[in-house]
Structure formats: structure tokens, C-alpha cells
């Protein structure tokens, strides 16, 4: 599926870029929200395969923003609809990015693991996605920029009855439109 392979692609980019940035950490802490741009569009320039030193054009804040925007899958605890506190900063970057790019549209896709009834899981997936939707709006995104859809347990990221598979399936994915 288009949406799924897109997310996987993004996840692997995140891993690559984390490795790069770990090698050249900066202490610059200038905050400049205006310069945060649509993260996905310029990932190609940052994920350089060569070992050449990065041009020091990006501030630490910009780097943090780009990293945050590459995180597009948010995982949930069993039977819990609230996103994890650790994800708050990442989601704030997504919200500011939407605020700075009013033409940008995203889709929040909510999912559940297979335990519990299907209809309830469909509702639970929506509740999870709505939690993130509300947070994005409070932090500057416009309602019109975000579409919410729940797939319940119908589109697991991982099959099987293990805790590992279940934890990968309880998620909300941010998908560009």
C-alpha cells in the first residue's frame, strides 16, 4: 500500500539521519521557528552518503525540527488512547510545521492491536488519532489541514500474536497528503 510503504521509507530515513547527526552534534541553541520548513522535502540534502563534514548551515533547532518531522509513527500502550509524554515535543514540531505551511495537509491514521472486538478497536484507533489531532490544533495546526481515519485492527503493521507485534500495531501514523 502506498501509505504503508511511505511510512516505512520515512522510518528508515530517520535512522540514517540520526546516525549522521550523532557524528556532528552542535551546541548552537538559536531558536528560529520561522526557518522550520516542510521536513520531508529537503531530507535528500541532509542524508548525504559521503563522510564529508556537514555545511554548518543548520542550527540545532532546525536539526531537531527535521528529526522530529521524520518521526511519523507514534506508539501507544495497551488499552490506552493518550499518546506518550515522550512524543509531546515531536508532535509540537509537527504542529508548528503545519502552522508555518498552511497548504500542507496530513492524514492521521489510527490503529489498534487485535485484542478486543473489531468495532471497539476501530473506535479506539480514532480516539488515539483524535488525541494527536487535538494536540496539533492546540499547538497551531488548523483543523482543515488534518484528516483523521481509523483502521482499527484491520491494518496491522506486524502480524502474529506476540507482545512485540501488538506494540507495533498500537499506533498513529502521520501520512502526507
Amino acid at each position: 500500500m502506498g501509505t504503508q510503504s511511505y511510512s516505512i521509507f520515512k522510518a528508515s530515513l530517520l535512522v540514517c539521519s540520526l546516525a549522521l547527526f550523532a557524528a556532528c552534534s552542535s551546541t548552537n541553541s538559536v531558536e528560529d521557528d520561522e526557518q522550520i520548513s516542510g521536513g520531508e522535502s529537503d531530507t535528500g540534502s541532509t542524508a548525504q552518503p559521503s563522510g564529508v563534514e556537514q555545511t554548518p548551515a543548520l542550527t540545532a533547532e532546525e536539526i531537531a525540527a527535521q528529526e522530529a518531522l521524520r518521526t511519523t509513527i507514534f506508539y501507544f500502550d495497551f488499552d490506552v488512547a493518550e499518546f506518550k509524554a515522550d512524543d509531546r515535543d515531536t508532535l509540537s514540531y509537527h504542529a508548528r510545521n503545519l502552522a508555518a505551511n498552511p497548504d500542507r495537509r496530513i492524514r492521521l491514521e489510527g490503529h489498534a492491536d487485535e485484542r478486543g472486538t473489531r468495532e471497539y478497536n476501530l473506535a479506539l484507533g480514532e480516539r488515539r488519532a483524535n488525541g494527536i489531532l487535538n494536540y496539533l490544533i492546540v499547538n497551531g495546526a488548523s483543523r482543515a489541514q488534518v484528516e483523521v481515519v481509523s483502521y482499527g485492527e484491520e491494518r496491522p503493521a506486524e502480524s502474529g500474536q506476540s507482545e512485540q507485534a501488538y506494540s507495533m500495531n498500537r499506533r498513529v501514523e502521520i501520512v502526507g497528503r
Partner: protein
Amino acid sequence: MKPYRLLLAITLLAANAPARAELSIQITQGVDNPIPIAIVPFQSSGFGLGAEDVARIVADDLEQVGEFRALARENLLSMPGEQSEVFFRDWQILAQDYLLVGKVTGTPGSQLVQVQYEFFDVNRELLLAGEVLTGSVSQLRDIGHEISNIVYEQVTGIRGAFTTQILYVAAEQTPGGGANFRLEKADYDGRRPQVLLRSQEPIMSPNWSPDGQNVAYVSFETDLPRIYTQNIATGQRRQITNYSGINSSPVYSPDGGMLAMVLSKDGSPDIYVQDLRSNELIRVTDHPAIDTEPSWTPDGRSIVFMSDRTGQPQIYKIELGASSFDIERLTYDCFQCAKARFLPDGNNLVHVRRETRQSPTYQIAIINIETLRVITLTDTSLDESPSLAPNGSMIMYATKFQGKGVLDAVSIDGLVKFRLPSAQGDVREPAWSPFLN
């Protein structure tokens, strides 16, 4: 009368594309003292090889529901085809309570066959039922199921459900992370599956109209969950809803005129009813928690649903037209109770039950809402989507076996179980048809 009915059924079935693989049945648990019945292979003449073994179809039907045990063919002492060839003493020696014999006669140069059967009480040496059924060779399976219905009703007094069908959803993972979803219809035993709808997006919640002619379901084919109805014979579809948010759980009212459903257009999932003639939409519940899984009470006046308004799923009931505050809670003694539906008696509620917070296992159970007595029917851990046979004798449900979605059936006393393993992919969400004839 009967032959015309059968001919009609087959003509309509042929309009649908056949599914690739068939389900086949497996009895996993039976009663201790099944009724012994001798089913003699039907004598056949006048048509070619490859036709259905009618006696085998009847024997499989009766053994599946657990109350009968068919005498093994190698133990038959004689092979009568009609009453004049029956010597009751033979069958009394073999300790058989009942005897079924028959003949299948073809018409040269034609697809028509005549099936004559006779059903006897061995101890009373009495003919209980017998007739001649006519149909085409391809209808021999239907005729076999029809004979099973008659035998079952003669012995138990309960109408047989062997000519009923099931709907279910099959899903297959495809290379590259996608999936294929199919809405299928099959005989009650999983044989002769037909694909009603294929999609690369999820299909959910199939539900029969009470006349057995239409199915309502949820399809994500537009990337969003929307409710559709489809005429089974013609394939003609109608999109019923296009509201923002969740559109799910369509369930026909007992008179077929209305569709209960779940919509989250006003913020959180609530129960609604849509009149299928006027398209008027009536809101039934109004609560910020999740309300879902509606089902109708047998009298069609109230709706049973699941809500997590107290924190965890429990089952509630509301009368149509009542204030959304006038809600009766039906379950208290489970950590989660969900997907409830009344048996025809209006007192016993089939549901999916998770007993405790500590143990996330989900089983099919029945609770009597007067006495609060609970019978747990299954002992696997991911059981869901219970659907009742129209004669109230068995419940089909979805569970997992060796990591795969399968359909199981259990008698409402929990004693008998059988399984319909799927050849391909996961099968889930069975919906047992009403009586179709």
C-alpha cells in the same frame, strides 16, 4: 414446490464469481451420547460419475451439529434403497435409532435428477418422512442439506439450518505490505464460497438483511470507512453513508426497514438509526465515550450496544425514542463485555467477554440478564464476532488457530464445536444468514 425453490437459488448463485479455495469442516468437540443413525448410500442410476454423494452430505451435516453419530459405512449389513428393501431387525441389531435410505435417478440427456428419500424410526418400525425432490445435478448438495433439515426436525423438533449460508471477510497479506480483502458468502459449512466484493482496502461488519437478499457492510474503498448495501443476487450496490469520521457497524432492523449504525460525525462514536426508505437519520445515543456495536432486540423496539462510558466496555440497552439518558446497563460482572446480541428469547445475551483486567483473553459467553447466570462457551483466547444460527442452535464466531483467523461454531450449550479451516488467508467476522427458504 421444492424443486422450483432450489432451481431459483442456484441460478442466482451462478451470477457470482467462484472463490478460489473452499473451506472444509472439522468437528472438534461432540456430545457424549449422540443419537445413532444409519444413513445408507443412496442408490443411483441414470447419470454420470462425479456427482455429489447425497448420503455423505446428510451424514456430515448431522454429525457436525454434534447430536448425531452416523453408522460407519463398513458396518452396514445391507444397502436398502427403499422401504420394501428395509428389514428393521438388521438396524435394531446394529443399535441404530434411525435409518435414512434413498435413490437418485437421472434423466438421460438431461441435467435433471430425482432424489427419493425415506426416513424411519427403527425401534417403532415406522416411516417418519419421505418424498421425491427434483433438481439439477449441480443442486444435489442443496437437496442433501434439505434432507438433513427434515431429518433434524423430525428427531429434535427444531427447524434445521443446513440450507443456510454465512458471510465472512477473508484477508490475505500481499508481498510489499499490502493486503487483499474479500467479502465472501458460503454454505453454512463453508462449502461453495462465492466472492461478493474484492478490495485492497479493509472490509468489515457484514450483516444480512432479514430476507436474506441484501448485505450491509463497511468498506474503506474510498480510503474512509463508509457503509454500503449490496444485493446478493444482482451485485447492485448502494452507498448508505458519507459522514465524516467513523461510519461502521451496520445492522438491519428485524423488519429490514432500518439500519442501526455507528457514526462519529459529532465528535465521538454514537449509535444512529437510518430509515432505509426515507433516509431519515435518528440519533440514538449521545455520549462523549465510545458507543458502538449496536444490535436490535428481537421485538425491534430497542437497541443493545457497547459503551466504555464507565471506563471499560460494558453492554447497555436503550429503547428507540427514549431519552439518551434513559439507558439500562446490562452487564457488571466482567472487565469487558462487548458485541452483544439477544437470543430469540429476549433474555439471554450472547457476547464477547474478557473476565479480568489481568488476563486479556476474549471468549464467547451467554448471560441471562434476569438471573445473571453466565455460561462461557469457548476456551480459546481471541474469540470474537459471534453470530447466531437462525434456529438458535449454534453460534459461529471468529478465533485464531496457529496464528491464522478461522471460523468456529459452538452449540449454545457449549457442548458441540466444529471448525471451518480456511485454505487461504485469514477469515473473520462470520454472519449467519436468516432462513433462506
